[in-house]
């Protein structure tokens, strides 16, 4: 059995939190958007492509969470690095930053996407404005992603 340092184990938890919560938010958001899109396509087959676009938007939060989780694993567990417990806690912080930000952002984006799909099926001219409104909740995930990266860089987990 491979010996894993406590700090490294904590970083693994950070990776889990990053993809777990971000994926949860993204999944719920995408589910809401998909349910709305299916309804729209049932009424108007031409809504398929636009429905796919709106449904795909809440995917990004899971991608951010996935990236942070991969980075955490690459620079700790997979690199065989023995992290100190303090750095392990920083890694949990990084994972929580993108995890929780992705959770809220994904769900919010899903609701906005579903509502936009409804608007577009009601009035096709609403497509561009719908995309803009749906993109807005993306910012919270970007903040979480940036903070996670900064935490990892300045604490020395990445490139240290």
């Amino acid at each position, binding site marked *: 059995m491979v010996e894993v340092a406590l700090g490294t184990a904590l970083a693994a938890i950070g990776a889990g939190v990053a993809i777990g*919560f971000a994926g949860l938010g993204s999944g719920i958001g995408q589910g809401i958007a998909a349910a709305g899109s299916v*309804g729209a396509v*049932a009424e108007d087959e031409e*809504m398929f492509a636009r429905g796919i676009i709106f449904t795909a938007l809440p995917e990004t939060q899971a991608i951010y969470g996935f990236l942070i989780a991969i980075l955490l694993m690459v620079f700790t567990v997979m690199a065989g690095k023995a992290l100190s417990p303090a750095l392990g806690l920083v890694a949990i912080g990084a994972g*929580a930053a993108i995890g929780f930000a992705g959770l809220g952002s994904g769900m919010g984006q899903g609701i906005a996407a*579903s*509502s936009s799909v409804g608007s577009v*099926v009601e009035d096709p001219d609403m497509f561009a404005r719908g995309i803009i409104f749906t993109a807005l909740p993306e910012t919270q995930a970007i903040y979480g992603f940036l903070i996670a990266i900064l935490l990892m860089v300045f604490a020395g987990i990445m490139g240290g």
Partner: protein
Amino acid sequence: MVEDIATLVTSLGFPSIESFLGLIILVLLIIGAIVVIVTIRPVQNIFPYTYPNARVRGRAGKIFTEKQFSEIIEAGNIDEVKNYLRGFPDYAKYIDQYPLEKALDTQLAENYDLIARITPANSRDAFKFLLKKWDIRNIKSIVIAKKAGLSAEETLDLVVPFGDLTAKLDALVDANDINEVLSALEGTEYTSIIEDAIPVYEETGMLLPMEASLDKYLLENLLRTITTPEDDNTALLKSYVGSMVDAANLKIILRAKVDGLKFEDIDPYMISDGYQIREWKLKDLMEAEDVSGVVSGLEGTEYAQVLSEAMSQYTETGSIGAFETALDKNVSETAKRISLKNQFGIGPMIGFLSKKEKEIKNLKIIVRGKREEGFTPAMIKEMLI
């Protein structure tokens, strides 16, 4: 640094740094669980409505605009109206199948049926019950047709193939008189209503009491399906149905006052417990001397404003239509308010049904205008709701 942390952890009473970290992780897990639960809860209310609302909004987008109505009004005759409607798949499928009015009603009924099928479970009972509106409409049409001596084929042109009675429609249409209609309705919830109304009909020849009893049955029981709202959505549905109930009660009272009827004449047709206008208030209103007494008796309710504006029109024209229009407008305003207030819940469905009802009513007004002589497009436009 590491030693400082270890000293701090020990001074806090933890035997080792591992046990301290264990506690931190446990606290984080609890915080995470709370965040997840708090964040997901509102979504649980939104999620069941996303699919039906998207479908409903898709249909709402196809409701005719003012410009399209103007184009229909400009049609030279009824065939041009039909041709125009053939350009819209929702109408086209019924236009060649049924007479025009039946096609319009069937399209409306199809929308009620769709909503009853796709609405989330907590409001399904109410929307399913609302489908009985078509049973009641069909019974009324059949009874009127039998009274007028129409043939089975002519009667069939009046009924809409939606509602719970679709399996019995053939027998109902083939009935030769009201007693045979009653036999065909055997075993349904409408038997006792028709049975009670037949003696009055035979005595007076009036169908109005039977129609009023059927309307009362629909609205009274519809309100009962949502007596105790489970959540915000059913509470809003109740307020919408409630506004329909109040409007129905007020229409009966106002009509009765115009005809000089007394309390005991109209009491059987009142929906016992209104929404904003409760039973005691209804009694007061029924005992009012005349129309102005009814309007002043509504002081303190939202209907005072609604009806006082129509009062001046009534005084000028002597027509009860002004009150009926004001009450119908109030119901559609309620629907609009709900649809704007509750966009992620039941709002779009209620808003859509109200808009669709208005569209069909307007189309029927246009059809009538085109069918009868002497109505110019400007006159028809004036008559639209």
